């Protein structure tokens, strides 16, 4: 799993590639906390290169969503497809995270 963040004009873009699962999620949690602590008005999570997500990965994204929402910010995901999209639809996250 690879990830990167960029920020401009009070928008933080988080790009996650590969697999966000029980094996890799520990590598990203600190960065997710850092994003939330910065309180950007908008957070965009680019999942166009995410191949696989499991319940652990979902938990991490939902945790970030709740943290951002708590201070009045917004979080959306982009490029969700394949297996991650199937997971989002089952858990009804597409209604909340996909604009």
């Amino acid at each position: 799993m690879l990830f990167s963040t960029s920020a401009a004009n009070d928008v933080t873009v988080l790009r996650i590639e590969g697999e966000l699962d029980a094996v890799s999620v520990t590598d990203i949690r600190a960065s997710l906390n850092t994003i939330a602590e910065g309180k950007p008005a908008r957070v965009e999570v680019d999942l166009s290169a995410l191949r696989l997500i499991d319940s652990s990965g979902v938990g991490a994204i939902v945790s970030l969503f709740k943290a951002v929402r708590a201070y009045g910010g917004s979080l959306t995901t982009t490029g969700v497809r394949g297996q991650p999209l199937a997971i989002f639809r089952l858990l009804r996250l597409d209604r909340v995270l996909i604009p």
Partner: protein
Amino acid sequence: MPGTISFTRMQGCIIVRLEVPGVIQYRDIMLRTLSATCKLIAPGARARSSRASLFSAHLVSAVGEAYNNIALHGYAGREPGTIRMEIEQGSDWIRVVLADTGASFDPAGARLPDLDALPESGLGVFIMRSFVDEVTYVPGPPNVLTLFKRLDEPHEASPNSRRRGPAQRV
């Protein structure tokens, strides 16, 4: 023996067996083996069918969550044993059997999550049960979890997908 993989063809079915140490780091090996096996289902159909891709996505998701439960919970607090996986692939179906010697946990006992509350945990069993047609569990040792999924009939992921089939032993 951990780390071994075998391939057998019997009566029109393909059987793949794999055994790995029961730790989370070996999850990827299991799922990639399963994903490759899914491609053997109606190979011509896979090229033209988004349903075949969805079949694979659902089954890999379900088995991944089952694997997580064994590695992270079944073997928690103890010296991990192994996880044995047997994939039986028919013309339009796949049966996956996972066996372990960790703590028993019957997925039928798991509570349904409240999705409206956006839970951050407790979703694994729900995902597993929703994405396959049949789930059976026989506590052990070894604990034996069987997941069955068919390609032919359009399968909309449903939290009620928990019809029970015959128990399988590896």
